[in-house]
């Protein structure tokens, strides 16, 4: 049995925010895939605000180049969504790799971000799409960059009365884009090491290169110096070798040398070469 709690099931965002501001120690319930596991392990809350009935938070829409993803979109919904597949393919791919089919049907992207597991598949793709999160409470709305929202593994800047309502990303139509991860087992594995990329090329030159590397470091990161230096560079063996070398240096700088790097680094290196070669 789960620990005792009382739940409310609001149908609108406004009702949910009102409940959150009036209830003490209320916990937001979305997909349940993390929260109920934690409860089984002994975490308890007097009140649960089950927000899964709020339809507005399940919608994925686009407006010019911006894509608005309702925080209650499940991994499955994102993985098969047309807008995401066309303008943010790496995110669709990453969401299609999360957990098992049941977990993808249950778990939501918002819940995933609020839990801030450093191994979450969605993080690296979201970073290359310059994701912002929208946080709403009864007192107002604030928006912040995903990189600033996640403070440390399993720790975010969300405040007690807030709901993460939307994630907005920049669509990158026409980019060569993808997501790869290295795990012990293909399906049903928590990501160990992952790379998301979106690359725009023209006539043998790199125009725009975006990379995010996940799980190697406490938080996925963008090697921005390398990204900048690749702009308008000829796509040749030498450029690629130099860039890959610099990225590896940055990984080591960001995270310190770790025992697991003995096997991780060669894998990242080979992956990066493949990705840049395309």
């Amino acid at each position, binding site marked *: *049995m*789960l*620990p*005792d*709690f*009382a*739940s409310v*099931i609001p149908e609108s965002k406004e009702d949910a925010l009102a409940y959150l501001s009036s209830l003490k120690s209320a916990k937001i*319930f979305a997909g*349940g*895939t993390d929260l*109920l*596991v934690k409860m*089984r392990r002994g975490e308890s809350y007097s009140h*649960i605000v*089950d927000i*899964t009935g709020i339809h507005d938070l399940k919608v994925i829409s686009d407006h010019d180049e911006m894509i608005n993803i309702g925080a209650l979109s499940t991994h*499955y919904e994102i993985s098969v969504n047309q807008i995401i597949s066309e303008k943010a393919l790496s995110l669709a791919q990453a969401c299609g790799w999360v*957990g*098992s*089919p*049941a*977990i993808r*049907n*249950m778990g939501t992207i918002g819940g995933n971000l609020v839990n801030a597991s450093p191994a979450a598949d969605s993080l690296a793709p979201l970073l290359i799409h310059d994701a912002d999160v929208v946080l709403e409470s009864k007192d107002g709305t604030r928006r912040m960059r995903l990189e600033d929202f996640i403070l440390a593994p399993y720790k975010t800047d969300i405040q007690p009365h807030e709901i993460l309502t939307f994630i907005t990303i920049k669509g990158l139509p026409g980019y060569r884009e993808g997501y790869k991860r290295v795990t012990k087992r293909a*399906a*049903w594995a928590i990501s160990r090491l992952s790379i998301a990329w979106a690359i725009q090329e023209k006539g043998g030159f790199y125009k725009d290169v975006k990379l995010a590397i996940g799980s190697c470091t406490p938080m996925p990161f963008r090697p921005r110096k390398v990204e900048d230096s690749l702009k308008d560079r000829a796509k040749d063996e030498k450029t690629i070798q130099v860039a890959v070398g610099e990225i590896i240096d940055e990984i080591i700088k960001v995270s310190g040398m770790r025992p697991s790097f003995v096997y991780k680094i060669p894998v990242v290196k080979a992956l990066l070469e493949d990705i840049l070669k395309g």
Partner: protein
Amino acid sequence: MKKIDFTLNGKQTILDVEDNETLLHALREKLDIKSVKEGCSIGECGACTVLIDNEPHYSCLTLASKVSGHDVKTVEFLGDENLLHPLQEAFITYGAVQCGYCTPGMLLAAYSLLLKNEHPTDTDIKEAISGNLCRCTGYIQIVEAIRNAAGLCKCNS
């Protein structure tokens, strides 16, 4: 306490559930559907799989209060001892059942796959049952059973 109104195996069902009650508990203890098994209780084994709106969900991590207004299917929906579903027949033919603990969940995961994909590849099949553990068969017989049933059943008719 919440009153829920949902469709269970094609029948409208109204039930009182506790706020903290899982769908697994409600199905087994209140509706006496014992085909839904409890294995790990933390979303890793798939023994408790049910279909909600034809998609696999772990009932151990689903609050019963959440299924109000939705369609829930357990393995009873597929067939009974008098008339087995082609998937169930195939599981028997190909020796895909040993202790049987994983079987209801496996069948539902397979059924959900066939609803969406009438001709799945082995990769599709393995992916579809990747959230359902089997400690007995070694999976090969299960994949074979699903592959062979796929040709035989029009699941979505």
